[in-house]
């Protein structure tokens, strides 16, 4: 008998082997794929909140996200077959001139954990690539990361390019030197101080349309 509570618990503690096994068992037991996905995203929601509360730290969040990713890999074909697709796509990347990726990767993992399709453009991404990718994938969200004070100003160029191209996507930013004030100054829609908060912000922005 498939136990989705057990699956959620496996994801929360980052036990990827059990998460994969329990997902397979749930599928074999004909549990609806949407229910399995919901159990996973609920677990990642708990992880995000615990991270924001300082109850767990980056390593625990990382292994939970990886467990979710590996379990999702076997669920995904079934979801596709059932016509269940992520409602939203996010394009994320570290802005031009900046090669740091850990923060951006964490945000990507957590967004995937919230059942958002993530297109990760990597690091050192020019403004035009954000625009092109957002158009190509029909993104409703764009996430920009920068770790250096010297590259942070490049976020302004990306936001300007997105607006100039009339891309219908909300833009959120994050990274050590960024602030809510800076987000406002450059015309971004929001700022997230960490990967957990990024998911909450993404949900807010997407809900607002």
């Amino acid at each position, binding site marked *: 008998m498939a136990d989705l509570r057990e699956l959620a618990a496996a994801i929360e503690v980052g036990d990827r082997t059990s998460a994969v096994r329990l997902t397979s068992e749930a599928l074999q037991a004909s549990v609806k794929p949407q229910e399995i996905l919901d159990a996973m995203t609920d677990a990642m929601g708990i992880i995000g909140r615990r991270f924001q509360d300082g109850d767990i*730290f980056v*390593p625990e969040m990382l292994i939970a996200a990886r467990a979710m990713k590996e379990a999702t890999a076997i669920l995904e074909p079934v979801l596709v077959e059932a016509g269940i697709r992520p409602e939203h796509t996010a394009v994320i990347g570290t802005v031009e001139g900046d090669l740091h990726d850990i923060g951006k990767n964490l945000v990507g993992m957590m967004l995937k954990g919230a059942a958002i399709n993530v297109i990760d453009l990597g690091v050192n991404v020019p403004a035009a690539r954000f625009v092109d990718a957002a158009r190509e994938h029909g993104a409703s969200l764009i996430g920009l990361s920068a770790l250096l004070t010297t590259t942070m100003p490049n976020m302004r160029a990306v936001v300007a390019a997105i607006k100039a191209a009339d891309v219908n996507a909300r833009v959120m930013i994050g990274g050590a030197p960024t602030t809510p004030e800076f987000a406002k100054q450059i015309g971004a829609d929001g700022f997230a101080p960490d990967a957990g908060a990024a998911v909450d912000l993404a949900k807010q922005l997407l809900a607002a349309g």
Partner: protein
Amino acid sequence: MPGMFETFGRGGGTERKPSTLAKLDRVRKTFRHEEADRVPISDFFWGKFRDRWRAELGLPEDADPYYHYDLDFIVTVPNMDPHIRDFETIREDDEEVVVKTGFETTIRKRFDLPMPEQVSWETDTIEKLEAFEFDDPKDPRRYLSAGDNQIAGVGDGFERNSPPWVETVKSLYPDFPVFGSVTEASEICTRLLGQLNTLMWTGEYPERFGEQLLRIGEFSYEIAKAQIEAADGLLDGLVIWGDVAYGKSLFMGPTYWRKYYKPTVARIIELAHQHGLLVMYHGCGNANAIFEDMIEIGLDGYNPLEAKADLDVVTLRERLGHRLTFCGNSDIRVWERGDPDEVRREVLHRLRAAEGGGYVFMSDHSVASDVSGHTYDQIVKLVRRYGTYPLHLPTE
């Protein structure tokens, strides 16, 4: 392409100038939480900042901010690569160079970008880490020979065949209090394994990976010990490079840090103190959770106290009192904006933490290329003017 740690000096020998002895007295008093003649000032300068500073101030090509402003101390780095070997050049053209280093890591350095990109790591499983053998930390080549090393050579700049570390120390000794430095496990793991693996393995194999952190810590301790011996009395202090935090908090839980990182830091501090050296820990991000631990194990000074991680040295002074010297915290974002009034307010605010000693004026990380030479010039003048004891700080 010179970088932050190209710090070879202009002097030589073991005689110190009276002004250097005055600087050493200033730094020591400050770290003892006494008011010296004035607040010490130093920093870490990106190579491209130095170029800009020279050009903007019309200074000669060999001008150096440490000498030009007679800054109060300087930090040096020996060869701390796990394997002592020359870089293996994989690709090189006018735009970038890709090398494999003594961390057995492949790094791409694009000359137009400020920081290098770690492309791949040979040590990419915990089993490989457990099998990894470090070259002898006491190997004299680390301290006495020229050669490539990743910490000094691949950063904001790119430099091959770094000069012999001891010769660097000797070249600086007449003019500056000189700090050696040692990377602790977090910095070594970031380069040896990559940050993602480091954090992932902390979560996946907490105890097994923890044992490796302690083993790497032993390597760090022996590096500290060997460099102190190699310097033969020429060092005044030691910096421990040990980033364990980001903007919000520690990367790992404080309990984990206490079990697997703290013992090494404590041992290095004890060792340095046995040799009469001051110890400054360089750890980016918001490390609030471990400041009390640092005080408990006898750390002298904490750097860089990033303002962008919501740290404020005046608030920290209120909370921690004169139990820890604060080195840094001046918001580089304000420096980069370069508005003279805002810069003045920024400097005056940080100097409020200097009442009673225990504060070294520095940026909250390093002086980046977006800071104008004129702004840094203004900052040094402000610190010298308002940082003279007894402090009479005007309202910000």
